[in-house]
């Protein structure tokens, strides 16, 4: 036993409480300790994932109460994979922001890192918990950290974005609570595995209403259209690295929650078609909106929403291939979009408005950052031999297996739009004249930022050139998601063995 999934939550919580104290000893510690904690979480999640791969799902009970009664954490191939993605990104975001905008005061800096850590811990919690109410609590932890991070810069319109986010988030938690209330009133339990095993006894009317409220509640986090009005604002106004964290961490957790509901908890087959429909609508609306954006981060935000729509489409296909494709997309998106946010935030570093037109000709002054942005753009629109291609191809083949030709056609048409707006930016960066009056003053990235970006770039290239490096993991994760009875058995039986 290398460790326990519960430490993924407990250690950052402990650190969050400790940081205000140690900050009084040496101010630099508030920047360093979160990094150490995130690194620890990364190592732990990876070792646990390896262990899970060998020995099967780890079910961790809490306070010694076996599964249906106590809260339990489930670290399986799927949740482990997502937790690993989340912690990896969390660590990279920390590394990137370690010296990002150094001129912030001590107090905000301290809180920034606490919030970042709690954002990651909360998202990890959403993914690994096996209890719906506990998931709700973690959604709130993530949510409050996210609101605070969105409102981090006092100079911008960030409070507006944060308020919109909070409004929607608050509605989301209300919907979630209603859904939880309905489920509890019918089944008398909050444990996901037990809910799943008892779901067939539930009155279908309640089932559907609960599902609708669940999807709406989580859909707000998962950026489903039309629940995603907050997302572009929050991405735009949050600090650059936090945009990356939203795209890579928060949304992934939201998507996980949606699919856990649809695949495991509820036994409504029509929900899959429902996912395809809303996924397609999200994809089309978001990408077409992205086409006409003037601000760089806003464009990236819409693109991120669109990708999530595609992920939902892939999950909606519902076969092994579809789930595999969706997970692959999530993984790729978690690698590529942060790179775009990282490099993009350095491209418009000194700009107040963050307009796309301000990046003209920056390729000359900051070739590395600009090159990485181009790499990210190439990868996200799915050009081979970069990472995004494989996931797009697997989505298409998965859809083709089911004969969903209309879906394929729409996805491909939207891809053209995606190419247009990404390449417009790349063109501007590299092939337009630098204009002193319009363009921003270039700002070279710091060393730590370069490392963070390089790691992501290397991941993109590795996945692009040798996708088999990750496909094995993704296959076992997708089998894990589809194996509903396995999940129930694992949770309910492993729980038994620990009865006091």
């Amino acid at each position, binding site marked *: 036993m290398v460790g326990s999934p519960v430490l993924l939550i407990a250690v950052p919580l402990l650190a969050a409480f400790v940081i205000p104290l140690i900050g009084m000893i040496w101010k630099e510690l508030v920047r360093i300790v979160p990094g150490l904690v995130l690194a620890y979480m990364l190592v732990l999640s990876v070792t646990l994932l390896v262990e899970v791969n060998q020995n099967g799902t780890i079910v961790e009970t809490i306070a010694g109460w076996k599964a249906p009664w106590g809260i339990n954490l489930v670290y399986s191939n799927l949740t482990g994979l997502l937790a690993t993605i989340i912690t990896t990104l969390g660590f990279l975001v920390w590394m990137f922001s370690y010296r990002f905008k150094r001129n912030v005061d001590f107090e905000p800096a301290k809180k920034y890192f606490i919030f970042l850590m709690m954002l990651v811990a909360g998202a990890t919690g959403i993914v690994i918990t096996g209890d719906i109410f506990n998931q709700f609590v973690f959604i709130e932890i993530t949510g409050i950290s996210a609101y605070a991070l969105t409102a981090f810069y006092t100079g911008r319109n960030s409070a507006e974005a944060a308020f919109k986010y909070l409004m929607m988030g608050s509605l989301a938690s209300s919907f979630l609570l209603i859904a939880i209330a309905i489920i509890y009133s019918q089944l008398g339990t909050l444990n996901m595995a037990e809910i799943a095993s008892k779901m067939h006894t539930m009155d279908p009317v309640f089932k559907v209403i609960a599902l609708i409220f669940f999807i709406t509640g989580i859909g707000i986090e998962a950026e489903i259209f039309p629940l995603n009005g907050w997302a572009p*604002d929050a991405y735009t106004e949050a600090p650059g690295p936090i945009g990356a964290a939203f795209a890579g961490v928060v949304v992934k957790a939201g998507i996980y929650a949606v699919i856990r509901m649809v695949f495991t908890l509820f036994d409504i087959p029509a929900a899959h078609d429902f996912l395809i429909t809303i996924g397609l609508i999200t994809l089309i609306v978001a990408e077409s909106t992205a086409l006409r954006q003037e601000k760089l981060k806003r464009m990236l935000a819409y693109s991120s929403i669109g990708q999530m729509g595609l992920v939902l489409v892939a999950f909606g296909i519902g076969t092994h291939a579809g789930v595999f494709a969706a997970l692959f997309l999530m993984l790729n998106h978690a690698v590529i979009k942060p790179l775009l946010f990282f490099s993009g935030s350095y491209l418009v570093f000194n700009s107040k408005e963050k307009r796309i037109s301000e990046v003209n000709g920056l390729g000359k002054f900051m070739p590395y950052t600009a090159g990485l942005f181009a790499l990210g753009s190439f990868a996200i629109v799915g050009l081979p031999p970069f990472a995004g291609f494989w996931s797009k191809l*697997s989505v298409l083949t998965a859809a083709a297996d089911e004969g969903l030709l209309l879906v*394929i056609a729409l996805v491909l048409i939207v891809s053209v739009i995606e190419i247009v707006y990404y390449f417009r930016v790349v063109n501007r960066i590299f092939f337009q004249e630098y204009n002193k009056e319009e363009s921003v003053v270039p700002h070279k990235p710091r060393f730590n930022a370069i490392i963070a970006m390089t790691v992501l770039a290397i991941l993109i290239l590795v996945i692009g050139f040798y996708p088999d490096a990750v496909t094995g993991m993704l296959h076992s994760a997708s089998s894990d998601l589809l194996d509903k009875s396995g999940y129930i058995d694992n949770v309910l039986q492993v729980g038994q063995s620990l009865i006091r």
Partner: protein
Amino acid sequence: MNTIILIFIIFLAGAILTFLASNIKGLLKEVLFLASVIVPVVMFFTGVKAGDSFNFHLAGFAFQWEITPLGYLFALIVTGLGVMAAIYAVSAMQKTKNLGLFYFNFILSIMSMLGILFSRDLVSFFIFWEIMTWSSYLMVVYQGKDVQKVGIKYFIFSAIGAYAMLMAIVMVYSLTGSMMIDKMIQSYAGFAFNMQIIIPILFLIGFGVKSAMMPLHVWAPGAYSHSPMAFTSLFSGALSKMGIYGMVIVMAGMIAYFPEGHWFRIVIAWLGGITAVGGTLWAIAQDDAKKLLAYSSVAQLGYIIVGVGIGTPLAMLAALFMAVMHALFKGTLFMAVGAIEKQTGTSNFTEVTGLIRKMPLTFLASLMGIIALAGIPPLGGFVGKWMLYESLIGSDHYLLVIVIFFSSTAAFLYCYKFLFGFFLGQEEKEWEHVKEAPVLMVIPMIILAGGTFLLGTFPGLVIKPISAGLEQLGYAATQGKYWEMSMLFNEWGDQVVLEPILYAIIAVFAFFLVFLLIKNHKNTRYVSTKDISTSGEVPKEHENLTFIQNFFQPFLRAVEPLMKRQIDFYYNGFGKGIEALFDFTRRIYTGNGQTYALYAIIFVVIFLLLKTTLFGI
């Protein structure tokens, strides 16, 4: 290790190393660049032969790389032209900024083209296709002046093409469960009729974009003329041939199921015919040599598409022969324009004149290229066109013959314009300082020009590999009998086509050349070319009055109705409409948090209302 994979590894490593070395002073990057182009090419010629293959699995897809006879033929074009263009590029691109990017993309495009030719499965075909697209895109925008629109246009069209192709690939996958090209061709007959039509059309869009087929050609002039000439020779010569290659392997296999004269074939052929005419007419109207050649490329590819569309053995032979030929002479011509542009700083006919004595070797190369292009014996263009006519007549497409004939006659006009505009006519004081292009630029031109001559005289050299390729496509046993297909070969036998008139024609050429040179040596009264007045019209001050101005005015006036509305116009309108629409739809995001909350509630209510329909409960 398998030589095939080794070739790709060397290409890739060479590209990266060259890119990294680009900031080091000295000749290191040039040496690396040439090495990473030439070494794999040498390995290709010595290490592999048709039939070699390399298989592996990646991401759940089976990859099969194999050197097929047809692939070998096209690989000859790519490698030959690639090496020439590389040598040319080293000299032509000196003192340009950002050289690393150029070399990187150059090597990558050669690599990806070879990859396309070696792929026997659709996944790797598509991968290499896309690598080729983006590396050539980076070349188009490489020079960085006014390229926003051109580059985006090129990439949008490429993306539309590529995704149409991907759609077709995925449809094939859903029908056959396999990604193999052979499997696709074999099981094509079993598809439902609508699939039988839709899949080739989607493929056709994909390939048509790359080979600049008529309604999809609008990217071509801009892209060809904006990328560095060193690359354009490869771009027009080899890269656009990939579209032809794709058409040949996919379409030929597929539409072989349609009988000859089936409407589907006719449509493709006619698309080619229209492309040829339109390209030619637009080429005539151009004042810029690069644009002229670009439109001429469009036209030439139109001929090839006609051949592929007709699809009789002779037509295929003609098309493939013309593909090889086009690579040679268009490579030459673009190189020549590049040389002129490098030496004079412009590629506009209205500015440069009378270079014949300043750049005689360039002139020679251009002359040969133009003759080949125009299809005059003994150079290669003639053989191809002859076979095309013969096949068209043989398969009763008389109307198409007229179209092609009109187009290739009209092509003389721009050929003449090109030659006359640059080289002949008055010498201008302005261009007195101009010297012949550097040796490294001239040699590839001359070699390629020599190639047109060689193949025009001994077409058997290339017809043999073509026949092998045709056999691969299922045209039964054309090898060894190809000379029976065309009258041209029937008359004069196997290898030594046209030998009797060869020397006569060479003599005529030599005579004309000498005549021209001598004539230019005569002392003539010097009048500036910009000093002549147009008959009947009073020139305004500062008006460009070079003789090349409004060169074919009467002709252009005659065909004006045809050219009034560029297809571009409709595409732009469409694009603007889309953008306006999206500008409207994005107003969904009103910026008011309350509205977003309202959306959420509406979302819930809609699904509550529709729950019976949606969830069946």
